[in-house]
């Protein structure tokens, strides 16, 4: 752990996934109607399988085989074991919960909103209230932006919550005006919007149709996030809400410099189409956007990653472990290239403090 220096115990992990042991865990916060609805119909999403994912993961729940809690349940479902295996072992002093429990993409929008509300209660009361190092994300039914805004306003000011959570595969480009009530409410509440990879949009997961493999799905989150970011910039979301903080979670970031060059270049040619943009696209991105680190790409020459950190700015990238998922990043090993103590401090702790006020 020598590489970690003074940040051990104070590391901010900006992507942790808590699980329910079963959906029954949410029942204390669901009405009888929704409990019965779920038992009869499930939570129907824009995808084939009633449970699990369209692309089968490489292992159960896409999670580490050593992360099953000793007292049973899926990985990530025990606070006690998460404390031991993640927070204590890796010196995490500030962790953000991003629940990926079927709720946000549920097609019945009323059911979606009810599940999101229940998950938010469950986070606040079962996790954050019992562990001061953990902080919650407001899960919103983003395909119903008005209900999402209401959900944000419901929790605004509650210190258990440090961001608003969306998923990257929205049914319309995320900059589309239909989603603007979400951004407006987030800014009003002083909360960053985190957009995490995954989701079920109903569209193929690539712009060239459905691929064959989970591996392609995983690589493709980077391209989906690129398109989402382009939309948010070009539709003018950051022009309208200069104070909006956007955190792209588990989306990769090494693609960002190239995307900014491409956007700037084409904006110069086509700017007559988008007079509402007053700054270069890259200027909005540098002002409004942060990225979490996991999964960190793997060039043969690890110093190339150092170039990307430098080009985006060490102040823009936040450490994340993605616990308990299989592609977990260990903070003591994640920076495998030269970096100064100041840079490490920003990456592991300082940036999260600036974005989330940790």
């Amino acid at each position, binding site marked *: 752990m020598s590489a970690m220096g003074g940040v051990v115990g104070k590391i901010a992990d900006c992507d942790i996934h808590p699980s329910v042991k079963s959906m029954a865990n949410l029942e204390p916060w669901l009405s009888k109607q929704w409990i019965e609805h779920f038992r009869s119909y499930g939570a129907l999403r824009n995808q084939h399988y009633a449970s699990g994912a369209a692309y089968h993961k*490489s292992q159960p729940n896409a999670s580490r085989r050593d992360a099953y809690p000793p007292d049973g349940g899926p990985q990530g479902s025990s606070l006690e074991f998460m404390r031991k295996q993640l927070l204590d072992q890796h010196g995490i002093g500030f962790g953000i919960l991003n629940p990926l429990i079927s709720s946000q993409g549920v097609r019945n929008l009323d059911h979606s909103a009810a599940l999101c509300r229940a998950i938010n209660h469950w986070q606040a009361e079962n996790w954050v209230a019992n562990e001061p190092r953990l902080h919650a994300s407001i899960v919103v039914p983003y395909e119903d932006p008005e209900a999402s805004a209401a959900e944000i306003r419901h929790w605004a000011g509650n210190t258990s919550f440090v961001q608003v959570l969306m998923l990257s*595969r*929205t*049914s*319309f*480009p*995320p900059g*589309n005006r239909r989603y603007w009530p979400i951004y407006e409410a987030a800014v009003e509440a002083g909360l960053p919007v985190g957009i995490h990879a995954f989701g079920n*949009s109903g*569209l*193929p*997961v*690539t*712009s*060239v*149709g*459905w*691929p*064959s*493999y*989970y*591996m*392609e799905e995983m*690589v*493709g989150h*980077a*391209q989906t996030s*690129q*398109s*989402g970011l*382009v*939309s948010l910039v*070009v*539709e003018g979301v950051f022009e309208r809400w200069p104070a909006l903080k956007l955190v792209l979670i588990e989306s*990769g970031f*090494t*693609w960002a*410099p*190239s*995307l900014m*060059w*491409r956007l700037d*270049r*084409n*904006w110069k*040619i*086509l700017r007559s*189409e*988008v007079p509402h943009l007053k700054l270069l696209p890259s200027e909005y991105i540098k002002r409004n956007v942060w990225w979490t680190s996991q*999964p*960190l*790409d*793997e*060039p043969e020459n690890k110093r*190339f990653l150092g*170039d*990307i950190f430098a*080009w985006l700015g060490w102040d823009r990238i936040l450490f994340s472990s993605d616990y308990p998922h*299989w*592609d977990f990043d260990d903070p003591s090993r994640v920076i495998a290239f030269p970096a100064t103590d100041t840079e490490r401090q920003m990456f592991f702790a300082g940036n999260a403090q600036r974005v989330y006020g940790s």
Partner: protein
Amino acid sequence: MAETKIQVDCDIHPSVAGTATLFPYLSEHWREMSVVRGIDDLNSINYPDNTPLTVRTDWKPARGRPAGTAEIVASQCLAPFGTSIGILNCLFGVQTLFSEDLAYAYVPAVNDWVRAEFLDRDPRFRASIVISLENIEMAVDEITRCAADRRFVQILVLAGTAKPLGKRSFWPIYEAAVRFGLPLAIHAGSELRNSPTSVGWPSYYLEDYVANAQSFQYQLTSLYCEGVFNRFPELRVVMLESGWTWLPALLWRITKYWYGLRMEVPWTDRSPTEVVRDQVRFSLQPVDGPPDPAQLRRVMEHIGSDQLLMFSTDYPHNQFDGTDVFPEGLDQSVRDMMTSGTPLSVYGRLA
């Protein structure tokens, strides 16, 4: 002794003025259908006629579409750049037709038009075989028909397809490509069977155009994962008007998941980086690079090879001013590789 250096421009776009232009190459039935049904034009929204990107101002004619004749293209795009071989990639929107019969009425007409109006009129021109992916057997037939003429040097498809290009249903096309010594070129643009982005239809053309880079990334991932490069080690894939500064980040990411998920794609016997060095090339324009030449040189180091890029003007699209086609910061030896060495090694039919 005068220098007789070969210079290849691998991405030039002749324009079809409208379906009437193709009438000499359509059967009487399809001429009649075009008139009766009012099928006047198949220009796609990939390049709407009048955006500032579609045509460079000084290449815009007083009326109609640019690049309509061999004389105009040669005078604007070959001579000023000292190009000795120009590869024509016609983007008339035949790829989007849903009817297989209609598609394979217009597809051969486009290829025959290019042959008669360009290849037969100026020996410096070569062309790509335009196909539609709506019917793979018909595509292979069209490739076979055109491949008999060695002035057709590659096969052309669009980046935005209905299904990812690695899927096995497409493999007869790659088999034909290898059989005839034709690279597979993937060009910017979409059939629009899917929305331009994986998160739906954006509001602005700027987003559509930027999204081409994401489609290319999905396609390269698909071709790699499905094992196309393993099954067809002689196949060359050329990405045209794709941009290329996204390449290092994509390769690093595919590598990351190849390490973790290789069990799913056990036929992949080389790393993504090796496969690209062996079998994939990119056209120079557009250069989505940083303003700082030193930083661009660092991007080239990330790419790790000076043999992946091939000279292109992307004429008549508006990608650069004057004849200033190379970004700052590239050595002469790298430029020579782009204009001559690499295209001559990729296009077997240019030898």
